[in-house]
């Protein structure tokens, strides 16, 4: 395995131009990263390939004798199923709304924290508390708060109803819980972006007569663009996998399942490895697609990388 590493694509073509020492150095480089690369392939690549392999089979642990290869049947089953699409649109809705609101809130919070003169450290620490709390624990306190009789929010806002038992209000509560949890994360990333904006630039803009709003839109936002896109990308990917809040708050009742909850139900609870893996693969494709859109169309670059990805 180790011997094959140096002949990887890219090395062969330009090896002629390299000196003996340089080639040895490159070989050593490959040798040094080989263990890490192999571990990466083993822990991420293999499960994905195995899920793909399972998704082409009819394979239910309850019926070990009925295992067979069915090509794309599982994909047809899932993609023509109402539960899947209902879960898909719930996921999209939760993702879009929560990320949009988090962005607006996170930006305001970042501006406040950036400009805070006294107790800057304290303000930042305090605002990070929701992000530090385990999601499941937070979700339980939301659930109790929204349950009639025991919950202060339910009693105060809807004395006659049980908001977690209605589709729309249950979804709104899920989104609220998501926003509460991850706005600090968004704010933190955006604050890092704010630090990139040079004060001179803002002063110059002010001298030219730009008001606060113009300075924000015309100067700060463009400079912050890489940080904003990274923050949006991270949160979109994160929100698309929403799972724990939904499981705790509604267990997916009243059509509030997300695709992850559905995949879990079919794979772990239902023991249907074929259908469950098909869903996992579809989720993987969706996540990859989101990342691709952000990177190729919006030019998001990973933090610390060079400018090649951006436009």
């Amino acid at each position, binding site marked *: 395995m180790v011997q094959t590493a140096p002949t990887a694509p890219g090395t062969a073509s330009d090896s002629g131009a390299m000196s003996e020492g340089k080639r040895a150095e490159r070989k050593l480089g490959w040798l040094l990263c080989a263990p890490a690369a192999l571990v990466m392939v083993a822990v991420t690549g293999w499960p994905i390939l195995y899920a793909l392999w399972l998704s082409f089979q*009819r394979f239910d642990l*309850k019926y070990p004798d009925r295992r067979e290869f069915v090509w794309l049947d599982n994909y047809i089953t899932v993609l023509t199923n109402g539960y*899947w699409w209902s879960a898909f649109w719930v996921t999209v809705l939760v993702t879009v709304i929560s990320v949009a609101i988090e962005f607006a809130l996170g930006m305001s919070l970042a501006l406040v924290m950036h400009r805070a003169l006294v107790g800057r450290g304290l303000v930042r620490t305090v605002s990070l508390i929701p992000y530090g709390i385990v999601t499941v624990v937070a979700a339980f306190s939301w659930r109790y708060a929204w349950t*009639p009789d025991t919950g202060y929010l339910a009693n105060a806002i809807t004395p006659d109803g*049980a908001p977690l*038992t209605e589709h729309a209000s249950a979804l709104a509560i899920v989104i609220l819980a998501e926003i509460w949890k991850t706005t600090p994360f968004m704010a933190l990333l955006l604050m890092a972006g704010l630090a990139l904006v040079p004060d001179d630039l803002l002063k110059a803009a002010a001298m030219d007569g730009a008001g606060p709003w113009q300075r924000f839109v015309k100067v700060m936002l463009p400079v912050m663009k890489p940080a904003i896109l990274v923050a949006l990308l991270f949160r979109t990917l994160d929100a698309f996998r929403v799972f724990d809040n939904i499981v705790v708050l509604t267990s997916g*009742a*009243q059509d509030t399942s997300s695709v992850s909850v559905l995949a879990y*139900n079919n794979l772990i609870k239902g023991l249907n490895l074929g259908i469950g893996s098909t869903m996992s693969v579809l989720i993987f494709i969706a996540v990859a697609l989101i990342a691709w859109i952000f990177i190729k169309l919006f030019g998001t670059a990973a933090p610390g990388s060079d400018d090649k990805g951006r436009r």
Partner: protein
Amino acid sequence: MVCASALTACALASGANTVNLYSAPEENLQHNVDRCNAESGGRYQIVYHKLPRDADGQREQMVRRLAAGDSGMDILYLDVTWTGEFAEANWIREWTGENKAEAERGTLQGPLETATWEGKLFAAPKNTNVQLLWYRKDLVPEPPKTWGEMISTAQRLKQEGKPHWISLTGAQYEGLYVHFNTLVQSAGGHIITDDGKRAVVDDGAVQALRALRDLGTAGVTSAAMNNAKEDNARQEFETGQSAFEMNWPFVYPSMLENKPELAREVGWARMPGLRPGVPGKSTIGGANLAVSSYSTKPDLAFEAAKCLRNPESQKFSAINDGVPPTIESVYADPQVAAQYPMRETILEALKDPGVRPVTPAAQNVSTVLSNMLSPIAAIDPQRTAERMRTEVQNALDSKGVMP
């Protein structure tokens, strides 16, 4: 000798006579384990490993390990609905010969059915459970006999400005399916054929759907009913806002402890039926003990399992953990009688039970059904039955998608 310490990891690897029991956390089960170990005279040594507290968690841990052929588990604690699944997947051993005879001796028919798959016994009933109707004697002198009577009584109480809620497990989960099954069985209907292969959803099931819908739209349940599980239903009743509660017997000791003054006003009866003069067939709960196919010492495991569910063990569990026995003679024991004022009603219900259809796909069927039953006010009897026929059949064939 090092393994004399309480280290679980050590126990796993220890002696040839170790029998690993994987069971739900039961406060006083260790006592039975110790007694059986002492009685065996060193032939076997049961080590009690606690599974998670919730049923899904228990099933998931066992299933995961069994699917991987784990030989570290010998005796498995199975919820009554899992027998078909574990048997069909070849994860548990059939009970035969003398073992079978002992598991069946004096055991009530209903609990035995829950341990049977395709005519073969795959587990020994450890404890059972039935729901009863709990009602307020100060509000209604006689318990309602039928579902319709219960609803109209509650509506009358509401008009009179008295406590009137009917509390039940209305959340979208197994608990809602339990009520549906009770009603279907009471109507003499079927969801699935007796062999567990085909979806039926006949007229009886449609009647049951209608009954559930009627309760949902009658205005006599709490706003939180659609999210209520066993404990939420218990709390509703204990706060004094309910006139009726349909729940397992654990609610009674709880009431004695939390609301002794209310407990004095509480009566119990069999679950209301659908037709006058025919009591409801309460759905059976409880747990069975099975022996893993991957166990390396099945003989010891069968012997230990028999001890863990023998009359003496069941009596101890009934008195100390409040779980109803599966062996009829235990009910007559004076000590049990003192602890179980409602034992006659429980026994009556147990002898006329509504067993959930036994099928390997029980979990899938339950998930699919509870999805279509929730919220109960939105049930459209004919149309919901139509949908159930397709989706339950898909679940049985492990086709299609579980919600």
